[in-house]
């Protein structure tokens, strides 16, 4: 969807990108992790930086994609996952 929209809307100077988070600690995942400790163990195996993501980890990447500094980026995905996909 992102790439198709980027293709169609580029003519109006509209950029479309995705930001792909890895495993984050949220109210929902926190409950899950307490209920099933084995999930945390599984998630931590891919965590190259030794921790899960925090909501704040996505502030600056998101602002970057909105800002003029990323003017030549469109149809791209910015993966912010603590290294998880690098080992998958």
């Amino acid at each position, binding site marked *: 969807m992102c790439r198709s929209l980027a293709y169609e*809307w580029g003519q109006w*100077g*509209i950029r479309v990108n995705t930001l*792909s988070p890895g495993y984050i600690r949220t109210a929902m995942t926190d409950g899950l992790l307490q209920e099933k400790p084995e999930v945390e163990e599984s998630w931590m195996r891919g965590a190259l930086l030794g921790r899960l993501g925090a*909501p704040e980890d996505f502030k*600056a990447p998101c602002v970057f994609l*909105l800002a003029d500094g990323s003017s030549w980026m469109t149809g791209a*995905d910015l993966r912010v996952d603590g290294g998880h*996909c690098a080992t*998958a």
Partner: protein
Amino acid sequence: MAPGIVSDIELPRDIPESQLSAANVPIEKAFGLKNRTIIITGAGRGLGITLAVGVLESGADAICLDILPEPSAEEWDVITKLQKSTGVRATYHRCDITNEEAVEKVVAECGEEARQRGKPVKGMISCAGIQQMVDAIDYPMDGFRRIMEVNVAGSFLISKHTARLLRDQKLGGSIVMIASMSGQIANRVSQSPDYSLVMLF
């Protein structure tokens, strides 16, 4: 230098693209969001409200949309303080992003209001989304369809109406869709393939 080998780092005297690029500004400006307004969906709580704080801290005004009648009080408190200390402006609107009429109305009204304040809408973060922890093999279709409705149709609707506004303003803009790494790899909790499909965008 040996004949036939040319430098790959030397620049031509004239680079027309440098005149066209909005990124051709001092770095501080390139990473800032001053003089514009950003729409954020799912901004009543969690990641969405955190991203709204990031937008406001970068100098933009924020139009926060969520299906909740009111945003989470504790988190909105941070936004109220930011508004007082830095003069940025944030508004909250209850909006079901799967309802096209509601989405069209809120984008048009907020867009017009932002333009009149001299801070036109120049971007949108699509953060509203839901998730279900069910194994694919037992997953009821009504749950699957609900996920598709919110995560896919909802993200598309807000993108479509934001794009119409951006097109008509002729100022360009940036749309950021919050997806997931599960668009690329298996998710290690929810085995549901729909989550991965949805997040692929």
